[in-house]
C-alpha cells in the first residue's frame, strides 16, 4: 500500500497494490517451468525470459531500420548507412550494445588476408543490415569536480565486442572550435556568449554577444555550467550537451541510425521530467526523432540520422535480469553524474519507487505520452537544444508572466524596441538578436528561472563577464521567420503602442481618479 501523500486522508484513500504476481509460480509462457522472474505481475522462467526481451528489442527497432516502409510485410532489413550506439556505461546501454552486437554484428563472415569478407562484399552471406557500428561515449568528468576519467574503462568494456569502432567524446567538445569545425566542415570560429548580470546569472533579456574570451573548452564548459541558475538547469544542460554531441557525431560518421539505451523506466522518467520542465511541445521527440530536425516528412532524407530507442518496451528490472543472466558487463555510469539533482533526479526517484509497487504504471506513462500531439505549429528549432520551437511562445509568455526588471538596460530595450528606432543603430546588421525569442520554453526556463538556493553543483569559479555557449548556438536566419499555419494564414507580430493598447482595452479600464 502506498500513501496518497495527504496526511489527513483516511485509509480508504490509500491505493491498494495488487499482489506481486497474478497466477501461480509457473511460467505463463511455457507453463512447465517454475518461474524465475516477475514482470508486471506475470511470471516467466529464465528460458522464456531471454527470448521475450529479444523480441521486444527487435519489435521496437526493426520497423525503423529501412529508410522507407515499403510494401512488403517483412521487408529485408537494410539500412542506408552505418549505426552509432550511444553508450553511457549504464545498464540500459550495456544491454543494448550486447543485443545489437549479437543480433546484427556477431555473425560476421570470416575475412581473407586483406580483411575483406570471403566471397566478396556482395555475397548474400556478407550483406549486413548496417555497414558498420560505432560506439560513442561522452566523458563528463570535466563537468564534475573531483570526478575521474572513465574513457579507458569504457574502451576496455568494449573489448569483448570485436569490430566495433569506439568514438570517445568529451562534454567540453561542445565548446571546442576544432571539434565544431570537424563536424561541420565550417571554418566559422565565432563563439557566442550570453551577457551575465551582477549576480553572475544570465540577464532576463538573454542578450547575445560575440565572444571576447579565450577560455579553453574545459574552462568554457565550467563557466557555462557555473552561470546556470539552478540544479535542474545544470542537469538539463548536461543532458542537452550529451544528446547534441552524439547527434552531430552520428551525422558526421554517416550513420543512418543512432540507437540509445533508454529503457521503459528511463523513458517514463524523461517524459515526466520533460513535461515538468516545460518541454511538452517536443514530447514526441522523446520517443523517436530524426536528425537534423526540421525536415518535413516525405522530403528526401539523405544524410539524416534516425534516433531510435530499442529498449523502450523493456523495464529496468528486465534489463538488470537480462544483463545478469547473460553475463553482460555493466561498467556503471560515472559515479557522481548518477546523483542527478533537481527535477530529473526527483522524477527518477518518484518513477522508480512507483514502479516497485505498481509495475504497470510506468508503461501507462509511456503509452499516454505516446498519444500526445503538440498543439499549434512549430516555427523552427530552438537555437540551444534544437528541439521544435512552439509558435507564439513569446506572446504567451508575456501574457502569463509578471516580471519586474531591476536591470535598467532591459527596461530600456523593452521600452524602445519598436522597429522605428532601429535607425538609431547604424550597425544594425551586425547586431545579434536577443536569444530569448529563439529558445524553446524549457531552454528559456533553464537560463532564467531563479532558485532560492544557489546551485551547489558547479565549482565556484572566478566570475566571468559572460557565459560561453556551445558552438552550435548560431543565429540561423537574419530574418525572423514568419510562421504560416496549415491553412495558409500568415501570423505577423507587431508591437502595439501604449495608446493603441489602451484603446483596445478601454472598455475594461477603471477611471483614473
Amino acid at each position: 500500500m502506498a500513501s496518497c501523500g495527504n496526511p489527513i486522508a483516511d485509509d480508504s484513500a490509500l491505493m491498494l497494490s495488487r499482489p506481486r504476481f497474478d497466477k501461480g509460480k509457473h511460467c505463463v509462457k511455457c507453463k512447465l517451468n517454475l518461474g524465475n522472474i516477475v514482470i508486471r505481475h506475470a511470471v516467466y522462467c529464465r528460458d522464456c525470459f531471454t527470448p521475450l526481451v529479444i523480441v521486444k528489442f527487435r519489435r521496437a527497432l526493426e520497423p525503423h531500420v529501412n529508410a522507407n516502409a515499403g510494401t512488403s510485410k517483412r521487408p529485408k532489413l537494410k539500412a542506408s548507412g552505418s549505426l552509432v550506439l550511444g553508450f553511457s556505461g549504464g545498464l540500459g546501454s550495456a544491454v543494448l550494445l550486447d543485443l545489437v552486437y549479437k543480433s546484427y554484428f556477431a555473425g560476421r563472415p570470416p575475412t581473407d588476408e586483406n580483411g575483406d569478407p570471403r566471397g566478396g562484399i556482395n555475397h548474400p552471406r556478407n550483406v549486413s543490415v548496417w555497414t558498420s557500428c560505432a560506439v560513442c561515449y561522452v566523458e563528463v568528468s570535466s563537468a564534475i569536480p573531483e570526478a575521474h576519467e572513465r574513457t579507458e574503462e569504457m574502451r576496455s568494456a568494449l573489448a569483448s565486442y570485436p569490430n566495433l569502432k569506439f568514438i570517445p567524446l568529451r562534454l567540453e567538445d561542445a565548446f571546442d572550435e576544432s571539434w565544431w569545425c570537424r563536424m561541420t566542415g565550417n571554418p566559422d570560429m565565432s563563439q557566442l556568449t550570453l551577457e551575465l548580470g551582477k549576480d553572475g546569472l544570465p540577464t532576463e533579456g538573454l542578450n547575445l554577444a560575440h565572444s571576447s574570451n579565450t577560455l579553453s573548452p574545459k574552462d568554457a564548459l565550467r563557466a557555462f555550467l557555473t552561470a546556470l541558475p539552478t540544479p535542474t538547469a545544470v542537469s538539463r544542460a548536461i543532458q542537452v550537451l550529451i544528446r547534441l554531441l552524439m547527434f552531430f557525431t552520428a551525422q558526421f560518421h554517416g550513420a543512418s541510425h543512432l540507437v540509445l539505451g533508454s529503457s521503459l523506466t528511463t523513458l517514463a522518467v524523461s517524459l515526466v521530467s520533460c513535461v515538468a520542465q516545460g518541454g511538452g511541445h517536443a514530447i514526441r521527440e522523446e520517443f523517436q526523432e530524426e536528425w537534423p530536425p526540421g525536415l518535413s516528412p516525405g522530403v528526401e532524407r539523405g544524410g539524416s540520422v534516425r534516433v531510435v530507442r530499442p529498449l523502450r518496451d523493456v523495464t529496468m528490472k528486465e534489463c538488470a535480469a537480462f544483463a545478469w543472466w547473460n553475463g553482460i558487463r555493466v561498467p556503471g555510469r560515472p559515479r557522481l553524474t548518477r546523483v542527478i539533482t533537481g527535477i530529473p533526479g526527483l522524477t527518477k526517484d518518484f518513477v522508480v519507487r512507483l514502479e516497485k509497487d505498481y509495475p504497470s504504471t510506468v508503461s501507462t506513462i509511456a503509452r499516454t505520452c505516446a498519444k500526445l500531439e503538440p498543439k499549434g505549429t512549430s516555427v523552427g528549432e530552438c537555437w540551444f537544444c534544437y528541439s521544435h520551437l512552439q509558435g507564439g511562445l513569446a506572446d504567451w509568455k508575456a501574457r502569463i508572466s509578471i516580471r519586474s526588471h531591476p536591470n535598467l538596460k532591459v527596461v530600456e530595450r523593452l521600452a524602445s524596441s519598436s522597429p522605428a528606432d532601429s535607425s538609431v543603430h547604424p550597425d544594425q546588421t551586425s547586431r545579434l538578436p536577443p536569444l530569448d525569442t529563439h529558445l524553446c520554453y524549457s531552454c528559456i526556463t533553464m537560463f532564467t528561472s531563479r532558485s532560492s538556493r544557489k546551485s551547489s553543483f558547479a565549482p565556484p569559479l572566478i566570475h566571468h563577464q559572460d557565459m560561453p555557449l556551445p558552438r552550435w548556438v548560431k543565429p540561423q536566419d537574419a530574418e525572423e521567420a514568419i510562421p504560416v499555419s496549415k491553412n495558409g494564414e500568415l501570423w505577423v507580430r507587431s508591437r502595439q503602442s501604449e495608446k493603441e493598447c489602451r484603446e483596445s482595452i478601454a472598455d475594461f479600464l477603471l477611471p483614473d481618479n
Partner: protein
Amino acid sequence: MSTITVKVEFGGGLELLFGNKRVHSISLPSFVPADNTIAPSSPPNSETPLLAESDDPPLPANGPIPDPMKGLGEMKAKPLDVQYLMHYLRSRLLTERPELFMDGDTVRPGVLVLINDTDWELEGEGTYEISDGDEIVFISTLHGG
C-alpha cells in the same frame, strides 16, 4: 547453535557500496533476533562497522560465531531470513551511502534481488528463510541508460 553459510553477490554497481567486492561468503546463526538487531555492541546504522577493516565476518573455520541471541534474555527469535541478512550487510559490510542499499526494512526501489537465481518476489521477499548454501544476489538497476 547451528550456523548457515550463504553466498552473497552484488551487481550493477552495488558492489561499489561494499568495498568494491562482488562476492561475499557469510555465516550467520540459524536463529536471529526477530527485531533484526545485529549485535549488542554494534547497533544497526552504526557508522563504524566493527569489521570495517577486515574483509568478511569470520567463517566457521576461523572460530566460533558470536551468538547474537546470547545475553538478549527474553528477546524473540526467528529463523534467519533475507531481511535479517540485509540488516547484517548494512551494519557490517556496507562502507558508504546506506540509503542506496536499503529503504526501511527492505531494499531500496530499483534494486533487484535474486534468491538462487529466482526473483525474490516469487520467494516471499524479506521473509524468505535462508537455507545453508543459498545464493543471494543484489543488483542495482539505477545506473541509467
